[in-house]
């Protein structure tokens, strides 16, 4: 009993630490991010003033960095769905320390992604037309509906399991932090007292949300892929876009989660709760999805290339041999094969190797969206010379600001909200299981089954 209470106290302290103490590095990091965002806001103001002519997009290649980044962010928003929902449905106990981060990445990524669509509009002053005059038959409207539904569901799904932890904050932090925060925790913990009835309500709500959010998430990236697949352009006129994009989204979501997890674990000393086991399990999932992505690539390019319809020949030449070859082979080798190897080979299957793999995957998935958009546009539709797309400083600045905003929101979240799902981790600790052992797996050992109780 004594040992468990101490473990619980350590857990609570770990969860409360980020909220109570702020280091200088934190302020420096936030200041840096704010500077990047400010520069991006200036770049966007130039775009509002002069029009989209300040970007590199033109009639022939009319989408570029903005839509690429939009698709990328919506893609990584699938982190929360996979980790929280799918692993919760399958009752994988090892998920408990990372569910909160995963859910928050989802919410932040959705907000940043939606922002990029609005940035890409030629007339952002008319964005309300989408609501007033929206057509149900348009893929853009499907995007709007799916993303708002997913955002609402994700916020609900972030908030619900956080209620007991917010109650913990409310109880523990009185007098230790600013008054507005206590009021915030008080409000958000909706008078949680831990009664049996409240546990029942919350449990029912979480169950409903976790089952509902999986088809919503699948539909989100499917309809995002359909803004391409509902057109008649040669590289996009494919029926597998929906499935391919969903697989890619989950893939990049896992990678982003690994990266964020590694950073937060390091900064806030969560090594006791986020262990190598978590990285390895997520790594296995990532490797599985890498294989699915390789399968998707083979499916798409073999069936198109075997027939070589008009336009396919041009696209293959530009994608595999000429203008976009660097991008494609980096994506295939650096983003699918190498991370797969890093995870599957025992010598690199450690935290460093897996985080490196995740960084490669994130970069490669952004590159993949880039050549899907730009190379897709570049295939000529009529007899004219193909154009070239070169992003300008405005697009690069706004994109950097978008990533900085993503990082900033996570940074701020960590300051205000509990970074670990305390009650879930505690429940995991308290359940009598095998004797706790050191967090590091001996190399070469097979990983334990998901229900294992080692920390």
């Amino acid at each position, binding site marked *: 009993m004594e040992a468990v209470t101490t473990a619980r106290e350590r857990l609570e302290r770990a969860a409360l630490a980020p909220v109570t103490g702020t280091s200088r590095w934190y302020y420096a990091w936030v200041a840096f991010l704010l500077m990047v965002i400010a520069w991006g806001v200036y770049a966007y103001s130039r775009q509002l003033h002069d029009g989209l002519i300040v970007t590199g997009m033109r009639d022939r290649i009319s989408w570029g960095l903005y839509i690429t980044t939009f698709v990328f962010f919506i893609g990584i928003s699938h982190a929360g769905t996979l980790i929280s929902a799918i692993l919760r449905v399958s009752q994988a106990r090892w998920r408990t320390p990372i569910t909160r981060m995963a859910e928050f990445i989802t919410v932040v990524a959705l907000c940043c992604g939606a922002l990029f669509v609005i940035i890409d509009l030629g007339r952002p002053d008319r964005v309300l037309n989408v609501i007033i005059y929206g057509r*149900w038959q348009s893929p853009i409207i499907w995007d709007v509906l799916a993303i708002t539904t997913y955002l609402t569901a994700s916020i*609900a799904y972030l908030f619900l399991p956080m209620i007991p*932890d917010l109650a913990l904050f409310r109880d523990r932090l009185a007098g230790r932090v600013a008054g507005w925060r206590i009021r915030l925790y008080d409000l958000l913990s909706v008078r949680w007292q831990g*009664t049996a*009835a409240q546990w029942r*309500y*919350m449990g029912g709500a979480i169950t409903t949300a976790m089952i509902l959010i999986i088809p919503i998430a699948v539909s989100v990236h499917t309809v995002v892929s359909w803004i391409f697949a509902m057109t008649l352009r040669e590289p996009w006129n494919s029926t597998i876009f929906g499935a391919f994009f969903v697989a890619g989204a989950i893939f990049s979501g896992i990678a982003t989660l690994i990266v964020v997890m590694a950073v937060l674990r390091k900064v806030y000393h969560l090594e006791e709760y986020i262990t190598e086991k978590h990285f390895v399990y997520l790594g296995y999932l990532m490797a599985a999805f890498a294989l699915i992505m390789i399968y998707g690539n083979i499916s798409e390019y073999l069936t198109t290339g075997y027939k070589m319809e008009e336009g396919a020949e041009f696209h293959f030449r530009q994608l595999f041999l000429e203008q976009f070859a660097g991008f494609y082979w980096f994506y295939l080798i650096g983003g699918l094969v190498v991370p797969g190897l890093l995870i599957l080979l025992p010598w690199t299957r450690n935290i460093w190797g897996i985080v490196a793999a995740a960084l490669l995957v994130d970069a490669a998935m952004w590159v993949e969206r880039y050549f899907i958009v730009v190379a897709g546009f570049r295939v000529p539709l009529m007899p004219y010379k193909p154009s070239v797309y070169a992003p300008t400083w405005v697009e690069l600045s706004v994109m950097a600001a978008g990533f900085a905003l993503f990082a900033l929101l996570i940074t701020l979240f960590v300051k205000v909200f509990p970074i670990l799902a305390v009650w879930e981790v*505690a*429940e995991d600790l308290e359940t009598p299981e095998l004797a706790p052992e050191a967090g590091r797996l001996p190399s070469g050992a097979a990983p334990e089954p998901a229900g294992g109780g080692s920390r």
Partner: protein
Amino acid sequence: MKYAVTALLLAVVVGTAMFAPGGTADASHATLKVMAPANLTAGDSVDIQAVLNSAHGGEAVPGATISFYMDGSFGGVEGKVLLGQAITDKDGVAHLSYLPRTAGEHQVHVEYLTPGEGEPEVATWSHDVSGAPHQFYQSTAGVQIPGLNVWLLMAVLAAVWAILLSVAVRVIAIAGAEPEPVAGAPASRSRATGDW
């Protein structure tokens, strides 16, 4: 002198009679006749038959090109509109399919240009088209599959949002739940943060 004048007058009269215009055209080499109904309904296609016979002997002239014209105006241009050309068969009959679209009185001119002649032979077919105006041209785009439309999307969306709302309802229920009597500090703390 009197006889010469009479003969001249007679020649003029006979000559004029030979060239008199009428429903059929008399020329030195061929006569052209049109056979087609006089009353038509808009939207029903008819077969216009133009019969070409030689002037002497009246036998059929095969292999001749007959042109069918109407007068029309469109886009500020007025003039003859060529409805089509047809070649006479061994019976001297040229067929053209014609679909009247507009109600009212119309005329179709049938022309044959004898090789070597300067003036074409023209026959006119006047006809009356009746029938209320209705759109002839229908776009063939699209397939209607019953039930597969936006209402399905709306229904799915409404269902999802209703479920989300039920989740929100439970949150309110959490807030509204009556607190249990406090049994001692440690017990309630453990209940509040993890016992489920």
